């Protein structure tokens, strides 16, 4: 086995000082590591969210440490907890206020399917109101489950066809 030689100059010491990629892949790379999150927390899953977001599990490692408390500045909507029919218009408004591109994570059994609350008050899954990208099961989910889901979301963002300023509009 021969040693791989790289020159210690240019872009990160890469051979020849350049990289090849497609613009779409690069935009995806940039977006997946800078997901600004908007936590929409309504119930006990919030405790698990706090655990994930704070130092023990540290979402900042994945570029998601920047919590925005305005939906207009956020890329990723985390719906954490039970959504009732009374609250549904609020969630819909928050989602509509977010600018493109945007992604939605249904965090916990209640947001995914209504959970144990199969009754008159609770929306049976937030995908009845807004489109969802990643579903996290569990009541509440373990922080590891959440991290796994967010890494899956990053992979999804990387693979997407991104719209950008000069791209052809659909």
């Amino acid at each position, binding site marked *: 086995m021969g040693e791989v030689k790289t020159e210690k100059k240019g872009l990160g010491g890469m051979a020849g000082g350049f990289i090849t990629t497609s613009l779409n892949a690069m935009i995806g790379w940039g977006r997946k590591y800078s997901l600004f999150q908007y936590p929409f927390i309504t119930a006990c899953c919030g405790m698990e969210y706090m655990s994930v977001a704070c130092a023990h599990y540290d979402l900042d490692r994945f570029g998601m440490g920047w919590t925005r408390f305005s939906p207009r500045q956020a890329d990723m909507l985390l719906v954490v907890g039970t959504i009732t*029919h*009374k609250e*549904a*218009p609020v969630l*819909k408004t928050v989602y509509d206020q977010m600018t493109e591109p945007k992604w939605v994570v249904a965090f916990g059994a209640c947001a995914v399917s209504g959970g144990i609350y199969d*009754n*008159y*008050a609770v*929306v049976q899954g937030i*995908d*009845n*109101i807004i*489109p969802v990208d990643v579903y996290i099961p569990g009541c509440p989910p373990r922080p590891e489950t959440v991290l796994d889901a967010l890494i899956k979301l990053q992979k999804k963002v990387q693979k997407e066809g991104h719209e950008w300023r000069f791209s052809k509009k659909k």
Partner: protein
Amino acid sequence: MAIQQEKVVQDLKERFVEKIKEVSAHFGDDTVVIERDSLLDIIKFLKAEPYDFAMLLDLTCVDYMGQPDRFEMVYHLFSLSKNLRLRIKTRLPGKDPSVESLTPVWKNANWLEREAYDMFGVRFNGHPYLKRLFMYDGFEGHPLRKNYPLRRRQPIIRMRKQDDI
């Protein structure tokens, strides 16, 4: 000067002879079932000295569908100064589920009665603001009644169909 729990019930029995329908004790707490029209008198008597039931711990309703008097109001009282607990129950007919409001006696009865109105449709005479507490404007029916359809949903905004997703 401690007052015995039994003395409260005995005193009630003597003063409101024909208004007390039933008395029972369970796990050391007494339950008194009374006539609906005497509720306010009995409550005012209990709140005054010597028993001083200053605190309304809870107020709720039970739906016994199919029985002649369908709804049962339950009041949990607590006397802070005498350390007494008492449960008052009264039955309401299904056709006219109304009872005197306790808001003049205890301020916290306001929201508790609004909850009972919202969930069971019990009318409280003399309540200052008898509107729904939990459910939204435009919600039809009372969801904790036994005849509220199990699968009935009343969304405010349009639900996306499964095909749209």
